[in-house]
């Protein structure tokens, strides 16, 4: 009893200390900046919180962990707070998490109740977000004693469980997800093998000796594809921007939230609980909460979908509560609860933090600081939304020609920060192309990152476990349970498929003559790449090749089966995922046509399907051409002068912007980049040709 009281006192002291640390004005400023960026990125079309977190990551290198996580969680927690603005005002969700908000928010705006709907969305987001943080707060004392008994084998099992989540993270494409996850693990193994010193897949390049840095990979896979799609679709939200008086009815919206506090508590539970289950967060949470409100609220059948404020409250409280829930498995077990959390796991590694027992013992202050960051970010975010709704609403309709040049410059700077070599930029480009192709062909990208982030950990813990325990570690109860769950997680989609087809026999006979589709080319390309990597690994030492061989074989099997399925499986409209069921249920209740004719895709999908393929290919080629030319010009005159060239060319050529906008925009951008990155952050720039030929010109920033 005494030790329990002591434990609680220790945790309370840690929570208090974390709060005081976070109250430092500088950290609060970073938290505020993160919130502002989260709101802006949540609202601006084309760039979401995922790309935003990836973009921000390299600029946290020099910060202490408290400040870095305040910034990152400030951004991550408030993206969902900004989401409802375009959803309610224009009927276009800012992100996957506010898709259900449209159902009632947009009709409310049409009835002239935009202010009430927005206010209800902000307040319920605030309450839900704080509830999610509280959920994490109370879970720590429960998890802490358990975590203290975990050794390397258990941590290995947790990492394997994390990887098995690819099946869940992959939504409708578990085989592709597994291939991507295994490919991610193989990417993580590029470089010098720590056990034997063997150089794995380094291709005689000094840059690859230390492995591929995470930052260009993240930026390439998550940020560049969004920008590419922005150029392809060439559009912001085509909507009526006369949104009326947004402030009218705000008080009523707040009252609605307090009147429906019990609904908020229930939906926040759903959000926090579902969010803590790895892989099934963003896309499903709002639908489940909306469905729950539809089933349980009085008279909901008659009013939901026609502008009932309870519909907005239900989905918004749940989608903000999920952040706290998703952080829990990330911190405690190193198993990310969502794609954003997979990036955040990268931040842990960058700052030398190991998720797991350490985060609940010697780094408990940092964990509690994260909880406070989420709670404060939600309060700040909602406050900012209340104050600046009309300004934020305008961001929804910002043109692509203004967004793209600024963001691209920052991405280049961020990528170069990884190891400050040109190799970072080549990696950015290569992974950008890979990420865009994956997005186009609906290959889930989060498993790739999960594989990269957890690959090293798995190999390290595997060797420690084998060295220390031989094979007896497999019999440890926690390990056995976790590995069983992992196997169930991996096989669940196949079992589901069998159930949907009415048995294994029917499923195996449901084939047809092979048919070809261009998307299969990418699967063949992946098989080729992974096959070549496996072949190369055959020459290495046993300890260096064992994990790559196993992982590579699994990847080849998964990719091969996926290709066979694509070619020979008869087309189907069956559904089985949790999200599909939730959407279907809501639509049936609302009496709408069943639109969910295919399984949900647990990644951002391209919004370019309405364009002809030739246009998509042409514009994508132009985008990657821009990137190449940008790099070439950068090698000659330096990054900042190149931004001016790019802004002028891009804005004039792509959208024929008027000169009176182009020139001030370019100047403001150049001055801001120079001031922040050259003067304040003193970033070292890549060497340039002009700088080497004429050293006297080196006073020009970035030359």
């Amino acid at each position, binding site marked *: 009893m005494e030790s329990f009281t002591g434990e609680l006192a220790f945790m309370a002291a840690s929570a208090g200390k974390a709060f005081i640390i976070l109250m430092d*004005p500088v950290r609060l400023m970073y938290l505020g900046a993160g919130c502002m960026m989260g709101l802006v990125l949540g609202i601006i079309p084309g760039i979401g919180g995922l790309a935003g977190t990836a973009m921000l990551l390299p600029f946290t290198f020099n910060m202490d962990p408290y400040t870095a996580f305040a910034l990152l969680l400030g951004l991550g927690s408030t993206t969902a707070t900004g989401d409802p603005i375009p959803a309610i005002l224009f009927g*276009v969700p800012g992100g996957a998490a506010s898709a259900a908000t449209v159902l009632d928010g947009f009709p409310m705006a049409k009835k002239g109740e935009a202010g009430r709907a927005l206010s209800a969305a902000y307040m319920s987001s605030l309450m839900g977000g704080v509830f999610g943080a509280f959920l994490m707060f109370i879970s720590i004392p429960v998890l802490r004693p358990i975590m203290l008994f975990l050794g390397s084998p258990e941590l290995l099992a947790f990492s394997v469980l994390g990887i098995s989540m690819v099946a869940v993270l992959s939504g409708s494409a578990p085989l592709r997800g597994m291939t991507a996850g295994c490919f991610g693990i193989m990417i993580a193994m590029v470089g010098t093998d720590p056990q034997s010193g063997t150089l794995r897949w380094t291709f005689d390049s000094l840059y690859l000796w230390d492995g591929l840095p995470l930052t260009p990979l993240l930026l390439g896979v998550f940020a560049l594809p969004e920008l590419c799609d922005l150029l392809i679709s060439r*559009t912001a939200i085509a909507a009526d921007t006369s949104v009326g008086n947004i402030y009218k009815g705000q008080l009523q919206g707040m009252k609605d939230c307090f009147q429906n506090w019990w609904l908020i508590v229930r939906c926040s539970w759903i959000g926090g609980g579902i969010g803590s289950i790895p892989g099934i967060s963003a896309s499903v949470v709002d639908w489940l909460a909306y469905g729950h409100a539809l089933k349980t609220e009085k008279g909901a059948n008659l009013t939901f979908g026609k502008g009932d404020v309870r519909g907005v409250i239900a989905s918004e409280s749940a989608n903000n509560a999920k952040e706290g829930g998703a952080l829990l498995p990330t911190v405690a077990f190193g198993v990310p609860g969502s794609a954003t959390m997979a990036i955040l796991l990268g931040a842990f590694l960058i700052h030398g933090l190991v998720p797991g027992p350490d985060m609940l013992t010697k780094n408990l202050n940092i964990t509690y600081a994260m909880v406070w960051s989420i709670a404060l970010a939600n309060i700040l975010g909602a406050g900012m939304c209340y104050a600046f709704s*009309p*300004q934020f609403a305008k961001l929804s309709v910002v043109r692509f020609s203004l967004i793209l040049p600024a963001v691209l410059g920052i991405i280049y700077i961020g990528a170069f920060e990884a190891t400050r070599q040109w190799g970072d930029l080549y990696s950015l480009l290569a992974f950008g192309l890979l990420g865009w192709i994956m997005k186009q062909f609906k290959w889930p990208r989060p498993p790739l990152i999960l594989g990269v982030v957890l690959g090293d950990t798995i190999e390290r813990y595997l060797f420690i476990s084998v060295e220390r325990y031989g094979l007896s570690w497999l019999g440890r109860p926690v390990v056995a349970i976790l590995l069983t769950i992992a196997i169930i997680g991996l096989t669940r989609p196949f079992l589901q498929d069998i159930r949907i087809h009415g048995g294994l026999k029917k499923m195996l006979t449901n084939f047809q003559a092979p048919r070809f589709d261009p998307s299969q080319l990418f699967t063949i390309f992946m098989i080729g790449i992974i096959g070549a990597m496996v072949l190369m690994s055959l020459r290495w030492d046993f300890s260096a090749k064992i994990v790559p061989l196993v992982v590579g074989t699994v990847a080849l099997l998964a990719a091969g089966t996926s290709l066979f399925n694509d070619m020979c499986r008869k087309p189907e409209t069956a559904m089985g995922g949790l999200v599909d069921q939730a959407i279907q249920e809501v639509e049936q209740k609302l009496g709408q046509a069943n639109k969910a004719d295919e399984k949900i895709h647990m990644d951002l999908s391209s919004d370019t399907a309405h364009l002809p393929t030739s246009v998509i290919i042409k514009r994508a080629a132009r985008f990657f051409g821009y990137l190449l030319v940008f790099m070439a010009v950068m090698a000659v005159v330096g990054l900042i002068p190149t931004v001016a*060239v790019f802004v002028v060319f891009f804005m004039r050529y792509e959208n024929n912007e008027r000169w009176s906008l182009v020139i001030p925009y*370019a100047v403001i951008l*150049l*001055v801001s980049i120079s001031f922040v990155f050259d003067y304040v952050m003193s970033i070292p720039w890549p060497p340039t040709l002009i700088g080497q030929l004429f050293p006297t010109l080196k006073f020009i*920033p970035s030359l």
Partner: protein
Amino acid sequence: VKHVTTVIIILFALVMLGFAMQRGLIATPTLEQILYLVQMVLGWTAWTCLVALAYAGLEKLFPDILCAPHAEDPPAPNS
């Protein structure tokens, strides 16, 4: 209401700046720093104008390539 929020934004920015200066996070700018800032603004303005002039010249030379109107896309299903 619009003006009130604009004033709030400006006031907030000024308060933050004042606070940062008071805490010593941002030192009161010296003459040298102000000159650096002015040079930076003028320098980048000159460079941008140079690039703009060059591009405008290219537009005159190759109007068919650089000034060709882009074809209208079919509307996106969500708009």
